[in-house]
């Protein structure tokens, strides 16, 4: 009698070594997966929900300052190092890995206006309200030694900001004039002036390192070249710009934080219209900083919130706030693109995750694959209304909500009025002006 039985070749299903993964025989014929679309949709929906569940961006609070935090200085080489300056002239160096202040000293009388590290991270430059530039060693002094500046430069002019060139041993300060300094000299190499009272922020282009830009008190943004004897160009906006940040990956783009609740991204070569207007803040934007990938930036505002923007979008992708955080004065994006920092009026420096729901710590390869899949699914179904709704839902403080409502009402009213005026006047007399063009008054040569 012949016995028929199913026989399987062990070569087909037994793995050769333990390290190999089990083979998963699959049939990818789409006819066998009639519900692949719906299944993926549900997965995307779940991923989105989980994303919101795990969205806990707040990492830690660094307390120690005895007055409001006024400025940040990022160490160009060490990720765990951050320098902060306060209103009382104190500078603190933070050890971010241990979430502790590693060093502190009083640098200036009055505000510390700006901090910057040298290109190699060896020294720190600070400027303050006492019209001095002080140079400090980046390493803490030996036990028993006093904190003394390596060098103190007395400036003729008031100082409001400082920025260091990324390639050369030069730095620039702003105040009454824009001055270019060499690290080894106590006099500025040159001073650049263009009939403005105060320049309150300065920033070197990190890519084209000879170009720099200032924001001035007459609502203008001025471009300089450190090699030229004259400023290059000036563009005047409707309101004052508070801070300026260059895109580290796109040499010609920069973003300014403006007093009128918006941020503007400009292309240096086409200043008459901004490339993008970034809305959503409800009060003056005080600071802006680009992520090192150049794809996003962070902005802090007087409305006590931080917002994260995609550099090419006009609306923010996320908003961070806590109950105790007051007016945000300065923000920074860490150089490994993982964290953001905010310093605020109430003396605290806060550290946040750049991606609210990102998992900290070790991620196993399979976990990583799963995260990637979830990310791809979210991206794929991003336009579906339910997913969009969940992904973009945020709780915001009551005052922000109210302010937003108010702003919306005002805007609507203006639009209605304009439409009415247009309706009742001669054709073409009331032109349509795009939102971008409304905010730039003029470009001066």
């Amino acid at each position, binding site marked *: 009698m012949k016995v028929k039985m199913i026989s399987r070749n062990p070569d087909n299903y037994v793995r050769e070594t333990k390290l190999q993964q089990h083979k998963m025989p699959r049939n990818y014929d789409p006819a066998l997966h009639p519900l*692949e679309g719906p299944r993926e949709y549900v997965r995307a929906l779940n991923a989105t929900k989980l994303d919101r569940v795990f969205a806990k961006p707040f990492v830690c609070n660094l307390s120690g300052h005895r007055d409001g935090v006024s400025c940040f200085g990022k160490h160009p080489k060490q990720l765990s190092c951050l320098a902060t300056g306060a209103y009382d002239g104190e500078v603190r160096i933070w050890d971010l890995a241990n979430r502790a202040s590693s060093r502190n000293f009083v640098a200036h009388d009055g505000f510390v206006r700006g901090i910057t590290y040298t290109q190699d991270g060896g020294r720190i430059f600070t400027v303050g309200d006492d019209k001095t530039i002080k140079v400090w060693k980046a390493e803490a002094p030996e036990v028993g030694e006093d904190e003394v500046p390596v060098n103190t430069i007395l400036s003729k002019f008031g100082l409001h900001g400082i920025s260091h060139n990324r390639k050369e041993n030069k730095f620039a300060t702003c105040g009454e004039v824009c001055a270019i300094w060499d690290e080894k000299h106590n006099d500025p190499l040159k001073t650049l002036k263009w009939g403005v009272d105060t320049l309150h922020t300065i920033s070197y282009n990190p890519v084209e390192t000879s170009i720099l830009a200032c924001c001035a008190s007459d609502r203008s943004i001025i471009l300089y070249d450190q090699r030229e004897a*004259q400023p290059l160009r000036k563009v005047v906006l409707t309101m004052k710009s508070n801070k300026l940040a260059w895109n580290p990956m796109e040499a010609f783009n920069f973003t300014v934080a403006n007093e009128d609740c918006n941020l503007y991204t400009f*292309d240096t070569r086409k200043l008459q219209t901004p490339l993008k207007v970034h809305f*959503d803040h409800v009060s003056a934007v005080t600071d802006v900083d680009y992520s090192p990938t150049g794809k996003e930036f962070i902005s802090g505002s007087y409305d006590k919130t931080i917002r994260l923007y995609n550099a090419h*979008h006009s609306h923010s992708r996320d908003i961070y706030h806590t109950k105790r955080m007051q007016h945000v004065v300065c923000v920074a994006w860490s*150089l490994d*693109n993982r964290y953001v920092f905010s310093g605020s009026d109430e003396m605290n420096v806060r550290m946040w995750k750049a991606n609210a729901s990102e998992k900290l710590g070790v991620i196993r390869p399979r976990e990583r694959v799963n995260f990637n899949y979830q990310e791809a699914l979210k991206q794929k179904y991003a*336009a579906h209304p339910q997913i969009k709704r969940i992904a973009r839902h945020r709780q915001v403080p009551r005052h922000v909500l109210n302010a*937003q409502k108010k702003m919306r009402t005002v805007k609507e009213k203006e639009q209605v009025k304009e439409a009415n005026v247009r309706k009742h006047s001669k054709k073409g007399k009331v032109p349509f002006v795009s939102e971008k063009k409304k905010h730039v008054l003029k470009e001066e040569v």
Partner: protein
Amino acid sequence: MSDDEEHYEPRAHKKLLQAIGSLGKVQHIQKSTRDERQSRQDEFQLVKSVSSAESERAPRAVGLNDLVDILRTSKHSQAGKKLKNVQGSKKVLKKPLEKPAADRIKRTIGYEGVTKKLGRWDAVVAQQRSAETQIFPLPSETIYVNTSASARPLNTRIKSNLARELEASNRKLRELRKAQIGDTTDEKEVAKQERILHQKKLTRDELFAHRKELAYLKMRESQKSAKARMQNKIKSKKFHKLQKRQKMLEQMKEFELLQKTNPEAALEKLNALEKSRVQERASLRHKNTGTWAKNLQVRAKYDKDVRKDLAEQLAVSRELTQKKQESDSEEETSRKRPAPEEEENDYDPFNPWTKRKTAEEAEKGKGENEDSNWRQYWTKRNRNEKLLEEHRKEMEEELQHDEDQAVGEEETPEPSSKAKPAKKSVKKSKVKIENGWQVEEIERTEPEKLKGKSNTKSIDDIFEEHEDQVRAKLSEKMETLKERVNKLKAAPVKEKKAKKKDALQNLKSLALKKANQQVEIDEPLNYEENVDLQKKIPDQSEDNPETKVTPAVDTIDPNKVTTLVVTQKKTISGGINDALIDDEEAEYDEEDAATERQLTISQAFEDDDIIADFNRDKTKDSELKNTELQLALPGWGSWAGAGISQAVMERRNKRLLLKLAAPEKRRDENKDNLYLNESASKAAREHMVSSLPFPFRSLADYEASIRAPIGRNFVPETAFRMLTRPSVITRKGQVIEPMTESELVKPDRRLRHIVDRRIKRIPKVPPKAKIA
């Protein structure tokens, strides 16, 4: 008073006058003398030059002539001569421009330089933006450059005899030196020196380059300043007139060229010219109200030429005003009927939606909601069809032997076997010549003409007629324009703006289309307004889980309906395969997509009578709803076998007949053009996309992107890894440096990851569109 006059003393008076006269001449501030080099001139030491009268008394400053004189007499007569010659031959430098103007020029030049320098990054940035995956920190590749000075001779194993000899002699020489002079130069030091020399040489070269650049800048500056100085000096009206004429002529030439190559751009240009004319008119020149004209009017009585000038001027103004009215009327007519370009792309003559919206429709369009659109669509379509039917009948009556082919093609209820080839030919012609098919005209001009003039006209004739009209209008416009040019009257005000090129043009043209488009959502975050909605939705999904999700796309307009029909066919084939293909196809340029959309519509409407289908569907639905159910099963109840009387059976069957409730009326029963899908679940609607998300241009593309699964349950592992690769990859604990200049010259990255390599190996579809 009279006393004073009497006591007039001429001498005293003279004295007084002298005293007064010399008042201004007294130099209170001494002219400064410099004994030390100063970087800054003190403005307070800049004294007025002393007047001639004063200088007679005071010792005169030493001039060049004095020097020359002295030199001539002394033994340096040669030098004196040279100096004299120099004085004679060399020009005195011009007075420099005023400070603000000079500064402005400097700034402009500086800015131009910076702009140019920044432009270098365009390509890199464009490439970065369009990259599928970006890895940070930017992988830095060391580049080795073989500069000849530092290059070493080849260290070969096999050496010629000569080389060997040379080496030996060199060695000997060195040893000798060491022994005799105590030459202690060792190789390393020599190499070091060489390197330093090399560096120096480089710096020297750099210096030259720098100097050259500076010279160039200086040259540019001087050019600009000269130009700036010149510009306002020229008072000649004739010059300006000539300049204007030249510009105008240039524009005209450009326009003519454009007309041949790119008619659309030409039309735009024409409009721009028209606008400049209008602006000139608005400036109210050529009226006899200016000062020039008024002066002429005074002189006109006596001077014939002047009179002529004035008359000319008046004529010009009259012409301009007349022209304006004419153009106005033109505008109106053009508003009434869409511009020829707009019509060209249309295809389906019945479908009022295949044509692009005219400007005013676009304005209106936003306010209308979906349903009314539907109705409009069908009413319009029906009307069109009816009209065409009438027209056809009439034609058939009159000339049956040559039935018009063109109409036949468009007729929908034709046998499909016949229609297909015809269709193809139509398609081809469409692709080839666009202006041949201005099907649009049927709708408006045809009915009038049919009723009014002659019924015998075929559609082709009508089209031709219309085309002629358009052409005539264009040429008319051209003529007037030419006249104007010849007469030379317009001020090209707008010109500058037109010429100003877009600064970011380069970046835009370099921008690549992403092979894999992804949805971009740029909306404000939603805050608490939606809270109640959020609560509601989970409940619904719990209620009916089986109706959960169909990630199909909500249908809004017939374009989409028809494409959906097509895409459903596609789903039968492998999803992943056509997704990959579709991704590549996403590179189509917009025009292609547009034409394709048109084609798919027509294909969908190809061989079915939509209205009939539509009504059939509707009735079928209601039939299903209103049937009675027979619950009796064969054999049931007939336990005793066959032979039971029919009457009993019938009675029983009647009992088992399940009567449903009275037939419901369809909600769209009285609405001919409306079909309300009553079986669609409302819960699912909330999960459907209502509009095409941003970067997508065509529904087909978006559907393809959604249709293709990416999970590892549905696609092979490698494909899964490819499809889920994140767009930005960063590494923990690594500082991401800003971009450096090495990025500008970097070769392609060597791909290490297997997925990367696989992606690279996928053959790219040859780009259809030219790189603009």
